[in-house]
């Protein structure tokens, strides 16, 4: 006995003595349970202190300490549970550190019986009392330590003699009870640990085999428990570990044969040797298979720890029980895949393990392959279901198996066909599923032009399919799978199977959508990979299969897009995908894509005009991508640069009377962007527009949109040709009013005199003769002898001419908005045409009646139309000048009537608008706050002014003008200027009159006789 032990002995002696005394006194009712517990605690503390130094306890000391403890164990029934628990803990220390492996078999057996009793009651009298939780767990802990300590010598050879089997069996039963029915996780875990230790400690196979079925079934029960109370994950983990251990120990290939034998001989051995043994093995294998099947749901357990444990189980079984449990292998292989496919950091490592296992055994690969096939075949059905997690799992499994097989360089050619078919079916199912809850497509009211101005720079598409969050999982899964398929080195044939253009073209609806979607997933960025490969292989300039596929899908997409949006409104998702294809192609071909714009650009822009906001957004993104890829600074310059292609496409569309609403929108946008440079190329297009107008004039929406095109054309031309008009406008104006001089007066008087002296004299007009002579003007103006022969009309001018001459026939349209539009169009078109008089005057002649009708029409009573008509007429007068004089004269009554009408309306309006204010203020007010009727009136006033200034009026009309506008001369400078020019004298007269001065007839002037003038 060395010094340490002596020291330990000294330390232990007092608490031991104390304990036995207390125990005795307690027996004699002389000590309370408290004292006992106190003593036990002291002992425990001392023990703990002692074992801090290694090797201090030996079996002798242990026996010494055990003696007082045995008192306790003897009377466990009467002692407080806490005391027993403490005693057990002390015992555990003793077993673990004292006896260790030197525990004598007898003592061991006794301890086993004792502990089993404590943990679960007696073998004969089962469940006499409820086991206390703490006590139970302490007992199990102790058991575990016992098994641990007594590894080989005691359990294997010594204890478990054939007659001892019942004891062991009982112990196992207690442990299993603890595991299955333990009141708390702690107890269960302790029981599991004990069982675990027992299994690893036991050396007698026979004994283990005897208890094996029980253990497996109990563990299975725990693992597959479906009732509400879920066992804690630690219990599950431990159970799985235990199960792994026992399976490997009992029925591993080595075990089934003979442990010493090499594995290679194992099979032969099984068959050659022991028939009884093999029948047992077969029966057990069946049972185990069922047990394993029962615990399979655990592979989806949410705790990674549990899955990790399950993984270990699978791996161990596959590695060690390859033959004995051959029936279970496929199941477990599947499970491995499933476990690997559940993404988490822990499990990435598992993949390596899995790969290792598979690499070692080709037959496993076959299993994986066949389960992959099954999964693929089942996939469409899964996708139809509502269970999202199931979908995700299915996809993940397929994905993982693909990866695994790929790592093993397995050729999957045999799977290709079914893969392609089922993938397509799956996507179809997924689409159908997701479109069940179809949301109304958001409408977009944005015009194409506006869209371009927004300059959205987005370069990525928002997914059109699987928008709903619920189906997003399915989508990402499918996408991932597609990604993987793409990465497969041998995937070309598979891809060709999936990207099957025949399938694309022959299918329809969701199926077609699915095919296109899948193709896109596969083709996206495909060439990037390809080129990287080719770099190293130094292949000839590649026109590889990828590109070929892409080309095929691209041409299909163009076909889809070529169809008018008008026809398949509800197939917008297909169109959106087609747009994506175009974008991909553009990305791949970069600058080389430019010639493709011949066919591709218009369809994109056409979708910009769509009512469907999502499709519109898609088109915008596609346009951005295309302009990026083709090296254009922005989409506007892309359009400007390719306006010829667009004009061609639109013209061909319109030529076939394709009256989709997008075409005019695109045209307007093009025209606005390109300006007048584009106009000469649009002549046939305008022709088509008019022939469509002729056929469809009953459809106001369409007609309006077409007129917006014409409007845009005219406006752009007008913008570019303004200076020309200014230079040209000084030609055929009426002469300005010249104040009547003395000489004139004299001649007038002279003629007057002549007239009066003549017998058949006509009454001279009461006001002085106007200075301008209409007839003279007329005769002198048209010839223009000095002007050179007019140059032939440019294409632009011809175009505007034809627009101007064809448009007025549509003025009879019932839609006020359209009438307004046409009048505005005329207003901007007329100035352009003035440069060529010969061409313009006939137009002016035809325009006057149709336009003026709009002004006169009192039924119409639409101030905006009146306004526009007046403006158009003003412009017409301004441009045509005195050419229109006779027409104005003919229509004068109508004009006056119209003026009175609008004046009346204006006044009524202003009265209703503000009854408080006086009329004077009203009119003086700035026009900004005015109503529509005021504006209309103002325009008519403008028309009258223009008529006076540019067309010239006869004297009768002049009177009327003064009558109508005279009162305005005080307020408005423009009116005053014009009236002054017309006849300053009359103006003066009116002003005087307004001032209220009475004009007195001069009394005497020599030689002159004044007549009475009624003013």
């Amino acid at each position, binding site marked *: 006995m060395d010094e340490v032990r002596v020291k330990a002995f000294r330390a232990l002696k007092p608490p031991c003595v104390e304990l036995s005394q207390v125990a005795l006194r307690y027996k004699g009712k002389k000590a309370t349970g408290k004292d006992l517990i106190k003593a036990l605690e002291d002992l425990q503390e001392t023990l703990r202190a002692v074992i801090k130094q290694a090797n201090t306890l030996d079996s002798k000391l242990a026996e010494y300490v055990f003696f007082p403890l045995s008192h306790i164990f003897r009377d466990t029934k009467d002692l407080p549970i806490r005391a027993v628990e403490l005693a057990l803990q002390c015992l555990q220390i003793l077993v673990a550190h004292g006896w260790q492996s030197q525990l004598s078999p007898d003592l061991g057996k006794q301890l086993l019986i004792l502990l089993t009793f404590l943990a679960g009651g007696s073998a004969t009298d089962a469940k006499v009392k409820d086991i206390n939780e703490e006590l139970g767990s302490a007992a199990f802990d102790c058991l575990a330590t016992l098994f641990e300590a007594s590894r080989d010598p005691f359990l294997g050879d010594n204890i478990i003699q054939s007659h001892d089997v019942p004891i062991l069996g009982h112990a196992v039963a207690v442990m299993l009870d603890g595991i299955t029915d333990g009141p708390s996780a702690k107890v269960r875990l302790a029981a599991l640990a004990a069982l675990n230790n027992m299994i690893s400690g036991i050396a007698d196979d026979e004994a283990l085999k005897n208890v094996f079925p029980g253990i497996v079934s109990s563990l299975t029960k725990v693992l597959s428990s479906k009732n509400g109370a879920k066992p804690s994950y630690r219990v599950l983990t431990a159970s799985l570990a235990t199960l792994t251990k026992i399976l490997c120990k009992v029925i591993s290939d080595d075990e089934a044969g003979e442990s010493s034998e090499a594995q290679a001989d194992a099979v032969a051995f099984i068959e050659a040797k022991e028939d009884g043994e093999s029948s047992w093995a077969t029966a057990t294998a069946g049972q185990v298979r069922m047990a394993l099947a029962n615990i399979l749901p655990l592979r989806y357990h949410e705790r990674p720890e549990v899955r990790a444990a399950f993984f270990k189980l699978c791996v161990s079984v596959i590695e060690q029980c390859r033959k004995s449990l051959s029936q279970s292998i496929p199941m477990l292989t599947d499970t491995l895949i499933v476990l690997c496919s559940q993404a988490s950091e822990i499990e990435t490592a598992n993949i390596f393990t899995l790969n290792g296992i598979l690499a070692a055994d080709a037959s496993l690969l076959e299993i994986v392959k066949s389960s992959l096939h099954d999964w693929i075949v089942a996939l469409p059905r899964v996708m139809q279901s509502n269970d999202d997690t199931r979908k995700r799992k299915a996809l993940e499994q397929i994905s993982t198996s693909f990866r695994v097989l790929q790592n093993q360089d397995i050729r999957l050619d045999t799977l290709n066909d079914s893969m392609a078919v089922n993938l397509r079916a799956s996507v179809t199912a997924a689409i159908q599923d997701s479109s069940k809850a179809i949301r109304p497509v958001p409408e977009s009211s944005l015009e194409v032009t506006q869209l371009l101005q927004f300059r959205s720079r987005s370069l990525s598409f928002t997914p059109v399919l699987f928008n709903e969050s619920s189906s997003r999982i399915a989508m990402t899964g499918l996408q991932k799978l597609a990604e993987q398929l793409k990465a497969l080195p041998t995937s070309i044939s598979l891809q060709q199977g999936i990207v099957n253009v025949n399938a694309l073209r022959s299918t329809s609806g969701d199926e077609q959508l699915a095919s296109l979607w899948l193709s896109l997933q596969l083709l996206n960025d495909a060439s990037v990979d390809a080129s990287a490969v080719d770099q190293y292989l130094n292949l000839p300039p590649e026109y590889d299969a990828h590109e070929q596929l892409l080309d095929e899908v691209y041409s299909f997409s163009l076909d889809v897009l070529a169809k008018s949006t008008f026809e398949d409104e509800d197939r917008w998702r297909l169109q959106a995908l087609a747009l994506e294809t175009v974008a991909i192609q553009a990305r791949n071909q970069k600058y080389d894509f430019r*010639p493709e714009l011949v066919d591709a650009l218009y369809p994109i822009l056409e979708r910009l005009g769509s009512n469907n906001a999502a499709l519109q957004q898609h088109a915008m993104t596609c346009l951005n991508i295309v302009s990026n890829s083709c090296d254009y600074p922005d989409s506007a310059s892309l359009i400007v640069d390719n306006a010829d292609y667009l004009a061609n496409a639109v013209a061909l569309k319109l*030529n076939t009377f394709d009256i989709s609403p997008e075409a005019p929108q695109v045209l307007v946008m093009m025209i606005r962007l390109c300006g007048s440079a584009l106009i000469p190329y649009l002549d046939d297009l305008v022709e088509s527009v008019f022939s469509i107008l002729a056929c469809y004039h009953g459809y106001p929406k369409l007609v309006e949109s077409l007129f917006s095109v014409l409007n845009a054309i005219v406006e752009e031309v007008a913008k570019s040709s303004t200076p020309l008009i200014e230079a040209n406008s000084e030609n055929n104006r009426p002469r300005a009013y010249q104040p009547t001089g003395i000489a004139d007066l004299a001649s007038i008087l002279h003629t007057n005199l002549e007239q009066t002296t003549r017998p058949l004299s006509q009454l001279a007009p009461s006001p002085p003769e106007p200075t301008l002579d209409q007839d003279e003007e007329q005769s002198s103006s048209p010839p223009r002898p000095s002007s050179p022969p007019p140059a032939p009309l440019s*294409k632009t001018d011809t175009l505007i001419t034809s627009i101007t001459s064809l448009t007025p026939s549509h003025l009879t349209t019932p839609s006020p908005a359209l009438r307004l539009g046409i009048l505005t169009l005329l207003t901007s078109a007329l100035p352009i045409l003035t440069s060529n008089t010969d061409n313009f005057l006939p137009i002016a002649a035809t325009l006057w009646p149709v336009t003026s009708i709009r002004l006169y029409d009192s039924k119409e009573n639409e101030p905006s139309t009146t306004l526009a008509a007046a403006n158009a007429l003003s412009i017409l007068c301004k441009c045509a000048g005195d050419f229109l004089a006779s027409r104005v004269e003919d229509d004068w009554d109508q004009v006056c009537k119209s003026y009175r009408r609008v004046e009346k309306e204006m006044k009524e309006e202003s009265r209703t608008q503000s009854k408080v204010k006086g009329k004077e203020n009203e009119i003086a007010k700035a026009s900004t706050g005015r109503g529509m009727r005021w504006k209309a009136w103002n325009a008519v006033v403008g028309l009258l002014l223009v008529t006076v200034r540019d067309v010239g009026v006869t004297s009768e009309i002049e009177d009327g003008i003064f009558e109508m506008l005279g009162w305005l001369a005080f307020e408005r400078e423009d009116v005053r200027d014009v009236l002054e020019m017309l006849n300053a004298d009359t103006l003066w007269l009116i002003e005087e009159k307004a001032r209220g001065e009475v004009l007195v007839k001069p009394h005497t002037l020599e030689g002159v006789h004044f007549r009475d003038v009624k003013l």
Partner: protein
Amino acid sequence: MSSACLPPAQPAFILRGHSAQIHALHFTKNNARLLTADADGWIVSWNLAFKRPVAVWKAHGNAVLGVGSWGTDRIITHGRDDRLLVWELGVEDENILDKTLPVDAVEASNKLPWLLHMLTVNTLNFCPFAMCRDGMPQVLSTQKVLKDNNMPEPILIAVPNNIDSGGIDIYQLPTQTRAANIGADRDITTGMVMALSILADSTRIQVAAGYESGHTMVFVQNDPAAAFQKLYSARPHTQPVLSLSIDPSKDTYVTTSADANIAKHPFPSGKSIWNTELKTIKVTPTKHSGQQGLSYRSDGKVFATAGWDSHVRVYSGKTMKELAVLKWHKGGCYATAFAAIKPVTSNVTSDQASEGQIGRSVVPCSNQASEEETEALVKMEEQSSAVGTVQQRRDEKARNTHWLVAGAKDGKVSLWAIY
């Protein structure tokens, strides 16, 4: 072909840019370029892959009557300003030339392609020139020089005579000498020459001519020293002949006129002792008067005419049955051209075509590539199996499309991908 259930054919593209009516069309550079010529004297060379102009210049002060190509890089234009010009226009020359289309051009650009030859010819007749490769053995020294310069082989140009508008002059290029002359017929009043076609094989020269009176005649010269013999004469039309084209098989030729008839004639190469009286093979009354711009496709299977009624019609080369009516233009059409199509080797017709020289049809509508071009085309076809970049593929596609183009009064050229 065009059956009742099909929607009316639509052109694949419209080339806009001429402001005057189109008078002549011609495919060149293995169908990579299309030359269009208008009544103001403008020539535009279009890249058919991009459908955009690569060279625009004003070649003549007056209307262009005909356009042709000589080798791959030479362009022959024939204008009413009494000139026949030969321009050098290689692919690299395109870079320096103007690309502003006549519609946009304020005034003619002074950038012109290099001018190689100029002949002063008669253009009173509106008759475009006809050309073919000169089969005459060359003087050794000249040939050497020509080879050195990497020149295309010499050609013969047939145009109406300068003074005698019923006669025909034949010039040789590059020497610019008058090689032969055919006088106006003394017995028949033929009026002016309206359309010409010429074919030469070693020392033999064959000329087909159409006249104002509706006559058409074939002249053959078997020896440079001998005079031209009139081997065939017929009057299938009551109105002036408008266009004329030799079948690629070189056995027959077809004429159109201002009346509604289309007539197919024999194209004898020599006096046959068996059959002294040659007859018109077939006259088809089409009921559509005023068809011009006749052009044969290089395989001889179809030919097309441009109608004054704004329709382009496609006829079977064998039966002269109407196969398709293409309607897009609003105004009358004046010219058509076919892109040369891949020679099918099993086809006897095209075999012959590639063996011998290819005759130039009446030029404004000539669709036949000269022999060098055909050979180059064949070579291209062989290479096309090893397809190159996207760009090359696209060019390839544009070249191999079976284009039929038509030019009209409205200054537009419609491209149709049919047959």
